[in-house]
């Protein structure tokens, strides 16, 4: 029997899919929508910055150095005469790519550690959790600074340093999730039908940790952008002439009192981007809570 021969005249009840629920949620929360719009614009700029920058973001042009904002240079120029707007636009992809690299590396490593610790338990769990304690016992910026200072100042080393202080949070989060589902009946069922541990972890446990991980990752985009920019600000991250927002503020700081736009504009770009991701992340967390409450 492939199809019912008669039309029963039934229509499907409106289906509440993930997407439609999310859409309704966004409509009710203007702040979340604002966040989504900011994030969308930021991502578009990052993707197409090469084609939309009005001037070369790296080549100096000393004829127009430290020019105030004008119609030619909407956000003014810096000490090398480079158009600040162009550098901010070009810097978008630097910041977003950095955040993505940090989060994927620390998420992958943290998830692995968390899965192993939570699933195996016992002394392995103890050892791994003490290891995360070591990293969490220190203020994130200071530990990242120490690591990045010892590796030497470069954007790549700054990313390694930030990922090194970030993964323990994911390890903790995933371990907690694993512990909460490890003894559920469906995991027991999978074991009892003879599924191998690897399969149980990958097919039954891991998917249940993804929701909170995704929310955390969104909230972390803002945090990692701030941390990376802070490292660049103290001279440990991206080096000039790379158009990185933190290092632009750092160089511009010298001109603060006479040429305010030089450090002000790139800092404002950081604020706006981080705010966008935080608004979106907050909304996603509330949304996840709502779903949990509904279940």
């Amino acid at each position, binding site marked *: 029997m492939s199809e019912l021969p008669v039309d029963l005249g039934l229509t499907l009840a409106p289906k509440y899919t993930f997407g439609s629920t999310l859409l309704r949620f966004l409509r009710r929360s203007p702040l979340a929508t604002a966040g989504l719009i900011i994030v969308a614009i930021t991502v578009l700029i990052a993707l197409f910055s090469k084609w939309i920058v009005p001037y070369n973001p790296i080549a100096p042009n000393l004829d127009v150095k430290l020019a105030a904002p004008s119609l030619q240079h909407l956000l003014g120029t810096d000490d090398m005469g480079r158009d600040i707007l162009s550098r901010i636009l070009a810097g978008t992809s630097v910041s977003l790519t950095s955040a993505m690299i940090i989060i994927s590396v620390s998420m992958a490593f943290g998830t692995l550690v968390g899965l192993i610790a939570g699933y195996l338990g016992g002394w392995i769990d103890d050892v791994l959790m*003490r290891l995360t304690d070591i990293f969490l016992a220190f*203020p994130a*910026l*200071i*530990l990242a*600074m120490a690591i990045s200072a*010892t590796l030497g100042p470069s954007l790549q080393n700054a990313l390694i340093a930030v990922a090194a202080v970030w993964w323990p949070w994911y390890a903790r989060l995933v371990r907690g999730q694993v512990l909460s589902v490890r003894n559920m009946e469906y995991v027991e069922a999978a074991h009892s039908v003879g599924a191998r541990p690897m399969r149980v972890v990958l097919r039954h446990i891991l998917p249940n940790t993804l929701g909170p991980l995704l929310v955390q990752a969104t909230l972390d985009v803002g945090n990692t952008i701030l941390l990376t920019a802070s490292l660049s*600000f*103290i001279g440990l991250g991206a080096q000039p002439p790379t158009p990185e927002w933190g290092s632009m503020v750092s160089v511009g700081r010298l001109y603060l009192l006479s040429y305010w736009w030089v450090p002000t504009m790139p*800092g404002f770009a950081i604020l706006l981007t981080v705010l966008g991701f935080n608004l979106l992340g907050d909304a996603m967390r509330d949304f996840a809570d709502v779903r949990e409450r509904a279940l």
Partner: protein
Amino acid sequence: MFNHLLRRIVLSLIALVGITLLVFILSHVVPGDPARLAAGPQARQEQVESVRKEYGLDKPIPQQYLIYMVNLFKGDLGKSLQSRRPVSEDLVDYFPATLELTLVATLIAVIGGIASGLLSAVHKNKLIDHVTRVISLGGVSIPVFWLGLMLVLIFYRALGWLPFGGRLDPSLSPPAHITGLYILDSLLTANWRTLGSSIAYMVLPAITLAFSSLGVVSRMTRASLLDTLQEDYIRTARGKGLQERFVLMRHALKNALIPVITIIGLQFGGLLGGAFLVEVIFSWPGLGTYAMKAIMFLDYNGIIGVTLLTGLVFMVVNLLVDLTYLVIDPRIRAQ
């Protein structure tokens, strides 16, 4: 509870040792020759070698670490390559400035955060609630170093209301050294001129540093208070005719503060880290300033010293937070 505290202390000590190992390994596998840097670019090879010997950099790395750890237990953090003094002495000199800044910022964040969170919760969904929430979200999104620059631009450059750069007016000499905290020392020695000046110089850096934590504390207070206000005992308190103000302060706020205190402990770490950035902007002669110099000179002993000290302070603060639970929550005391 006592066992819990003991366990926390032991674990924290393990973490401290772990971090020395981590930073030590990192600092010794990287390229760059600290002996050459310390001897200066013009130094001849023999001079470089003698510096290397003087600082024990010629020994195998495991041995260097062992020596370092043995000395650490004696309170000796090694010699700084940049100041050529014992790191422990440097830290004693630079730490009070950072401590004072961080303490004042914590005070601002806690008082401001709890007050605005309370206001927000009481006037839920009113204008003041929205304003407070947007400001607190801005607080966690704003780069602390940029906020500092903007405050300097507005309150120093444009309005001329507040000074910036250092801890005290350059024409004044620091108060007699008692604690190293200028505000406290000025008070203790009844030196009103330095008191006024040190407070004025403190305002901008402390507000810069406090801003993001203030937002976090405010959000936490609001959320926790809104939860608490749903509780049955609040209804009971209102039902028996207590004044709303009394219900709020004595019944709701006290219970709502427990998660807030946890957050304050965690925020302290952020404040310590943020202090490093704020110090750079305001030429504040604290650990951050010292760390910047250590980084430039590849001064490993200095870097490890600063990292260890901040870790230790962070650890002590979190232990204190655990103790605070004992004071405010009888349920934990009973365990």
